């Protein structure tokens, strides 16, 4: 058992524990939202989608995707395989989180805005990132050489991050709005304490989910790389 394989095993264990805890947390937040959080007078029960949609969006757009791009940028400088392995793991989790945002967004939009899809700033940004991430995974799958794969996906990651402000500008220009101050400010300007508590616990759980998923995915990749090294050694 090489040190890498041992480290992979411990990471996977920690990842599983974190993931299970986070899933339980997520269930708790959903229960909290349904039972112990007041129904918003104008939007009704559908408004409670907010407590799952917004945390996933915030963690995806402000944690998962930036970490993916930043790990790539660091890789270009340090060429450390661990950074590339983390970037790939974080990119996979980012795709799942963006998927959830894109799935729950329209379900929330239909009752509130009357349409399944709106070019709202946050949703549009998430859609762009989803396509960028699909491109990222397609590129990684298409390149066999580990060095090329790591460098190319890092370059795409950095390019993608620089594209984000231009996506904001496009949405602003496309809808002719005055620029929205922060794309991710919760739609309700000030939440009453009972709602804010649920939202914050939603953030905490979404972050825990990201942590669990990325640790687990990183551990799996480390185990695969260690196994490959053992064969090739």
């Amino acid at each position, binding site marked *: 058992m090489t040190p890498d394989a041992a480290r992979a095993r411990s990471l996977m264990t920690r990842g599983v524990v974190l993931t299970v805890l986070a899933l339980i947390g997520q269930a708790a937040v959903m229960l909290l939202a349904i039972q112990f959080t007041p129904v918003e007078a*104008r939007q009704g029960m559908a408004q409670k989608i907010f407590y799952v949609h917004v945390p996933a969006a915030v963690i995806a757009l402000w944690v998962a995707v930036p970490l993916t791009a930043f790990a790539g940028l660091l890789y270009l400088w340090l060429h450390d395989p661990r950074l590339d392995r983390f970037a790939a793991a974080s990119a996979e989790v980012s795709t799942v989180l963006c998927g959830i945002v894109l799935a729950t967004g329209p379900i929330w939009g239909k009752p509130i805005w009357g349409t399944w899809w709106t070019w709202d700033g946050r949703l549009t940004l998430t859609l762009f990132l989803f396509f960028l991430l699909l491109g990222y995974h397609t590129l990684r799958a298409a390149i066999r050489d580990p060095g090329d794969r790591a460098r190319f996906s890092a370059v795409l990651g950095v390019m993608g991050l620089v594209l984000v402000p231009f996506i904001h500008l496009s949405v602003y220009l496309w809808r002719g709005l005055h620029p929205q101050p922060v794309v991710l400010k919760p739609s309700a300007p000030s939440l009453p304490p009972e709602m804010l508590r649920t939202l914050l616990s939603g953030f905490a759980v979404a972050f825990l989910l990201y942590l669990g998923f990325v640790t687990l995915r990183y551990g799996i990749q480390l185990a695969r790389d260690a196994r490959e090294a053992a064969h090739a050694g």
Partner: protein
Amino acid sequence: MQADTTRAPADTVALTAPAEVPFMPPHNGGYMVAAYVVAAAVYLVYAASLILRARAERR
């Protein structure tokens, strides 16, 4: 026109300024259930795929 005196149910809090005529919140809980089911499904399926891949590595 006789003012509508029914008050919104106790546990609802009007976020925005209450409309001139307070009314019952729309009955759209179904959307919430759908969104929660979809989100839960995606989280669970992904977690399961990770755990299965991890177990495959440990053998």
